[in-house]
């Protein structure tokens, strides 16, 4: 069962499995019947519907009768991305969320600069609070000059 879920990639960031992303919140197995609870990363993330159908399809292919539903609470946090997932993100060129994410910067407060996933320099700057998917922001490394995506801390 877990082996099957480990093979289902995130549709937007395919280096991450759904287990790495921390969106699988509940799994109960009774014989061949599986119930999976999935939490969305962002309320409006269009990938959520794709994730649910991918999970159902992968489980069906493995011979299970799958039922997938939403889990709203507790809300997803970027702290749920596994350490292995963070390493995969870095290798893929996306700065992973920093830990701990518990403390949220005040509205006008400068956030901590993320480390460049290529050269690890902390001399980085924010280009855009919003990026190509709801979960990412766009930064630039002032040391190696490369722009990079960063997983937002949520």
């Amino acid at each position: 069962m877990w082996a099957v879920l480990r093979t289902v990639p995130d549709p937007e960031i395919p280096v991450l499995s759904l287990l790495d992303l921390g969106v699988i919140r509940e799994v109960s197995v009774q014989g061949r019947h599986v119930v999976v609870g999935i939490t969305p990363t962002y309320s409006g993330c269009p990938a959520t519907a794709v994730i649910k159908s991918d999970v159902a399809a992968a489980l069906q292919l493995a011979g299970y009768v799958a039922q997938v539903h939403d889990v709203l609470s507790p809300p997803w946090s970027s702290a749920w991305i596994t350490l292995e997932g963070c390493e995969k993100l870095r290798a893929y060129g996306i700065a992973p969320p920093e830990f701990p994410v518990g403390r949220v910067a005040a509205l006008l407060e400068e956030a901590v600069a993320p480390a460049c996933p290529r050269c690890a320099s902390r001399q980085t700057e924010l280009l855009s609070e919003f990026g190509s998917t709801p979960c990412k922001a766009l930064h630039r490394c002032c040391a190696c000059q490369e722009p990079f995506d960063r997983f937002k801390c949520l």
Partner: protein
Amino acid sequence: MNAVTTPATARELTTYVLRLADTSLVLAQRLSAWIGHGPAIEEDLGCANISLDLLGQARLLYAYAGELEGAGRTEDDFAYLREECDFLNATMAELPNGDFGQTIVRQCLLDLWRLELFEQLTQSTDMRLAQIAAKAVKEIRYHGRYSSGWLVRLGDGTDESHQRVATALVMLWPYVAEWFAEDALEQALAERGVVPSVAAVQAGFEARLAPILRAATLTRPSNVDYRWFGKRAQHSEHLSHLLAELQSLHRAHPGAQW
């Protein structure tokens, strides 16, 4: 666990949840009009992403309203098949985008209000509403960072940018009053701990707004007596035009899907 114990409470809560949902949907629609028209691609992305989060929040709220109502209405029914006189959004959400400065002022005011409101709603005695609020509040906080950051840059920017956001603030401020004009429905729900008291939300909103206006070198306009009441379906002339566009595809092709 759940605050809904009587049919009357269910009706009141349905109305309240629709107010929240309609504000999210209408503002999402307004912001999406910036896609392809933003002053820079980053601002295109910013407006589009905030719009998407708001749409997601609206969907969660509409789904809950449908369950509370118990008449089988879906998210799409609420969004596409109601008339202007059925919508209960805060009036400010439906106002035109204007220039980017006006959009930012509108967004910042709404973000700060919704941030305070949803933070307090996480303590609701209605568990589902508290859960939706807990999800949304994380997103709204990020939106508030974006809009308040821009308000400070524009307010404390050039003479031109300062003038534009100062004018927009004076234009938009009268629409803030509606949020803090408590009506019987809000009072009844607040007494049962389902929603926060309007006074508590107002205090939190003012406390968040003051340092941002200071940093933006803007002056808080004085209050006016007139009250808009979008939350009681008394709208400005702008909502019907917005809905005509939002609903046209679904009305021409009922049940259309991608």
